[in-house]
């Protein structure tokens, strides 16, 4: 068959089609007009027009988090690309596989300070897994193939492809490569069998074993293998903020989330264990606090991760295992079965008793006299009403922590939030990505009145694409987490953390063509949520403005730089 001669724009679109892309989130502009013209003439994928490029990248990112597929965003040169940077950095910090296509000024104009020109490859370099500037039409298909390959393999991450406008107008043969090989990029997949046996030996001889799993388990589709292994070992386990849902929260061995706002039992067990199995997690500052304090209790640490650079970065590892977490965990199970007969589970009974005492402290209890809406209660009711089976996206701040603490996730890829970069404004575009991927599922965006305003323009996109998201706004008229730190560490000086001149969110939602609700009484929480999730409003976006307790804080809390066992509990104050 004779290869087709088509334009660079068509090659770009055909390449995306070859990758079975379902949605492209984007915003047109001068440098991508040829590409948009090619999109106009095709029907294979759907283009989702956002209202700001940041939201395009967030939505593509959430699509990927919810489905495990590569998300795609398309932006124009200059401001289109710079607006996308927050979205790209957010995806980068959480290792989310997305491909961003950005338009660039024509090759002859590069470096001339042309209209809407910026050094996109230079600007994005520190926050992408890799990026490319395509200077030859014959490289477009090959580069897009590489971009998808790099984004989705190894430790995943965003890859940007910058395409100058003149290249998209030229014509060339279209040949999409079936496979790609790169001599400089060969991620290790299989874990070292000797190391795995060593790890199992440590685990079955541990008196105080502990499992700590992170976002790598979710991204690596390893939840099932992890769950089987941990249940069989009957070990206690905690998940990081990014790892929630990686192990079912309803299981008796689950100690809740760990970290700065983790549960008392999870943090204490992390601190006091003698053998720690870390799976797809990276010991970051919000998770283990101060590393010196963490190591005060001597422990042997086994670390499974796809990224060699994550091993021994903050904490020295005794048994490193580099590989695909799912494959490694499957090998773990095999290795364990061989020695299972030697394992006496009674060895860890005293450890479980110790953990039980920590659980009994009931660190997530909060006082509620019904006079004002407690944000925690809203999340608990949301969990009830959605039967624990919704996609929950969040923005960043107190509401994010409450959602993580009070909405137990039993499945991976249901909890969608910005853990690494902590980007306020992701919640609504994240909900868009989830709802488009799963049009029949319940999608709740848990947010605050500060965060939601950072990407509120997307209410318009939600209308255009009929996305029946339920926006749960915990409105305390403060940037709650900032206020909490100011209360604890800055002598109650609430510098600029008060949200003055808030809009009437009900009217705002209505003006975008959505349903707005304002809920001011604790007794109305449940009925309002039931109504929002009722068949009557199944097709509608409902913006729920919950007026919550202004003074509520997130507990437990580990002050910055302190150790895991140095938590402040609600009753301490």
């Amino acid at each position, binding site marked *: 068959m004779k290869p087709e001669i088509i334009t660079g724009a068509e090659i770009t679109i055909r390449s995306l089609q070859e990758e079975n892309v379902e949605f492209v989130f984007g915003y047109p502009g001068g440098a991508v007009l040829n590409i948009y013209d090619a999109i106009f003439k095709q029907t294979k994928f759907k283009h989702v027009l956002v209202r700001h490029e940041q939201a395009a990248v967030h939505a593509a990112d959430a699509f990927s988090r919810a489905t495990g597929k590569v998300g795609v965003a398309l932006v124009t040169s200059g401001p289109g690309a710079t607006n996308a940077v927050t979205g790209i950095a957010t995806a980068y910090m959480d290792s989310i596989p997305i491909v961003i296509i950005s338009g660039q000024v024509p090759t002859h104009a590069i470096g001339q300070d042309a209209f809407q020109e910026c050094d996109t*490859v230079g600007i994005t*370099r520190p926050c992408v897994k890799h990026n490319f500037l395509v200077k030859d039409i014959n490289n477009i298909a090959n580069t897009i193939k590489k971009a998808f390959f790099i984004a989705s393999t190894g430790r995943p991450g965003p890859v940007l492809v910058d395409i100058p406008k003149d290249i998209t107008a030229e014509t060339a043969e279209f040949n999409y490569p079936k496979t790609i090989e790169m*001599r*400089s990029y060969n991620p290790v997949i299989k874990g070292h069998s000797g190391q795995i046996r060593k790890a199992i030996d440590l685990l079955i001889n541990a008196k105080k074993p502990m499992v700590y799993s992170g976002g790598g388990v979710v991204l690596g589709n390893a939840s099932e293998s992890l769950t089987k292994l941990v249940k069989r070992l009957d070990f206690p386990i905690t998940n990081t903020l990014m790892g929630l849902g990686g192990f079912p929260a309803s299981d008796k061995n689950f100690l809740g989330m760990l970290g700065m706002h983790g549960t008392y039992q999870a943090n204490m067990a992390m601190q006091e264990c003698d053998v720690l199995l870390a799976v797809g997690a990276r010991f970051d500052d919000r998770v283990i606090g101060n590393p010196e304090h963490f190591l005060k209790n001597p422990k042997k640490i086994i670390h499974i991760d796809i990224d*060699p650079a994550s091993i*021994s970065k903050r904490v*020295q590892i005794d048994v490193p295992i580099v590989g695909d977490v799912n494959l490694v965990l499957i090998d773990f199970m095999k290795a364990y079965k061989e020695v299972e007969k030697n394992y006496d589970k009674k060895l860890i009974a005293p450890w479980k008793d110790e953990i039980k005492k920590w659980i009994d402290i009931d660190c997530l209890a909060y006082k509620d006299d019904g006079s004002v809406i407690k944000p925690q209660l809203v999340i608990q009711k949301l969990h009830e009403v959605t039967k624990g089976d919704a996609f929950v996206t969040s923005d960043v701040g107190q509401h994010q922590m409450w959602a993580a603490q009070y909405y137990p996730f039993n499945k991976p890829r249901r909890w969608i939030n910005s853990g690494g970069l902590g980007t306020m404004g992701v919640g609504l575009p994240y909900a868009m990505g989830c709802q488009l991927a799963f049009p029949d599922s319940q999608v709740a965006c848990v947010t605050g009145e500060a965060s939601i305003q950072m990407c509120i323009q997307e209410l318009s996109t939600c209308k255009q694409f009929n996305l029946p998201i339920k926006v749960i706004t915990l409105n305390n008229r403060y940037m709650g987490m900032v206020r909490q730190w100011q209360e604890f560490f800055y002598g109650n000086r609430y510098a600029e953390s008060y949200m003055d001149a808030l809009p009437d969110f009900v009217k705002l939602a209505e003006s975008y063509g959505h349903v707005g609700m304002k809920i001011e009484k604790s007794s109305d929480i449940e009925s309002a949520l039931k109504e929002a999730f009722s068949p009557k409003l199944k097709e509608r976006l409902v913006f729920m403005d919950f007026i919550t307790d202004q003074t509520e804080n997130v507990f437990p809390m580990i002050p910055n730089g302190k150790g895991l066992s140095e938590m402040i509990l609600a009753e301490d104050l």
Partner: protein
Amino acid sequence: MRHIISLLMENESGALSRVSGLFSARGYNIESLTVAPTEDETLSRMTIVTSGSNKVIEQIVKQLNKLIDVVKVLDLNDGRHIERELMIVKVKATNKYRDEIKRISDTFGGRIIEMAETTFTIELTGPSSELDAYLHSLDKAAIIETVRTGALGIGRGDRILKI
């Protein structure tokens, strides 16, 4: 401790900035960095002189390996190696000092590559520490200008960096 790290990377535009960007973003030291194409024109070889604790050096090597364009990384300090740096120095060489400068340069194996009326230009290669020693032997006031390539290194015997 000072380490010489050699690496091979795809000879593509922007490759150098990926490496230098990594060092600045993660707060690693760079004492020197040299880069040139190899006999295989698709590959560049870069030599980075850096310093840090073993833990930091381990991270540097891992982070370099993680860059998509980097094909192979070798920490030369992991084994026996040869180090060389080239320096060109311009010094004041008036009558009474000309002999002394020549004598010092000979001692260090330097070569005078230009004799002007009042200056000498000397070329010297050796491990970086030897070049430092040479500069120390000269009268500080006599040194007009120096230019150094930064260190290059290669493994001894069968320690090789090749794909």
